[in-house]
């Protein structure tokens, strides 16, 4: 997949990032993430255990969803350097959910010799319920 680098000049305040879909988040991915992150809480991959914990079924790790949002950001800001990334967990992402990722440019500015853009990002599941919400600051190259 070939994609051009993103430049500071290409950005305008209020512009939207192209929407992207990731998933569905299947059990195997939850197991893979437990292994990669070291978070072995069984609510993420043992349905019986999740139900004892009064959950509808297995739920995705909040940090897995943040990671997918992070991947969405770096995919868009190709050639840029991420400076700050924050996420608030707004709701549960369940097993087999597909994430819709959205973002918007909040502002662009220059500071300490860097050309920065601040964006808002969020992830939604099928019924347009928001599961994470956050923002990021990225330093971009100039032409």
């Amino acid at each position, binding site marked *: *997949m070939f994609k051009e680098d993103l430049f500071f000049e290409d950005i305008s305040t209020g512009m939207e990032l192209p929407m992207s879909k*990731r998933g569905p988040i299947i059990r195997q*991915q939850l197991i*893979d*993430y437990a*292994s*990669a*992150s*070291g978070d072995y809480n069984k609510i993420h991959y043992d349905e019986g255990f999740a139900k004892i914990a009064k959950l509808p079924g297995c739920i995705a790790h*909040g*940090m*897995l969803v*943040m*990671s*997918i949002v*992070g*991947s969405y*950001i*770096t*995919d868009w800001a190709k*050639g840029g*350097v*991420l*400076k*700050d*990334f*924050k*996420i*608030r*967990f707004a709701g549960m992402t369940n097993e087999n959910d597909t994430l819709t990722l959205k973002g918007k440019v909040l502002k662009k500015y220059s500071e300490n010799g860097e050309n920065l853009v601040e964006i808002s990002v969020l992830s939604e599941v099928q019924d347009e319920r928001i599961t994470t919400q*956050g923002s990021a600051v990225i330093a971009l190259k100039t032409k």
Partner: protein
Amino acid sequence: MIDRKFIGYEFTPNEMVITRWRISHFANAIRESSPIYYDVNEAKNQGFKDIPVPTTFYTRMTFSDNNFFSTLGIDFRKLLDGGREIKYYSQGCAGDTIIYQTKVENIVEKEGKRGKMDLITVVTSGKNKDTGEKVFDLIISLIVFH
């Protein structure tokens, strides 16, 4: 209620060697499709010295001490993960050794819909062991209901 004596408390530092395998293992788990996380030549073509870490890789270094929760006396049944923030100072790559240390930045009481709670801000800072260069700050907001 969490004991306020822990405000400013620093846990024992820890270190982790970032390997190519660890990165590709993590990248696969998040279904990252960019080849820079799997192929060192692709990474170098993009200007990295080696395979770079994905944005949330440092999660693995969230607490420098495994006894974080028991030290603070946090009851998991009353715990809610409010969110994360990562500040990046320099790019971590395979081959780097990171020294990281967790500190309790602040504990404040708040009142919400579910009653009184403690909001604990925890910061884990990572630096490159060889160069001393600061790499990241990982900021965690934990909510513990009374």
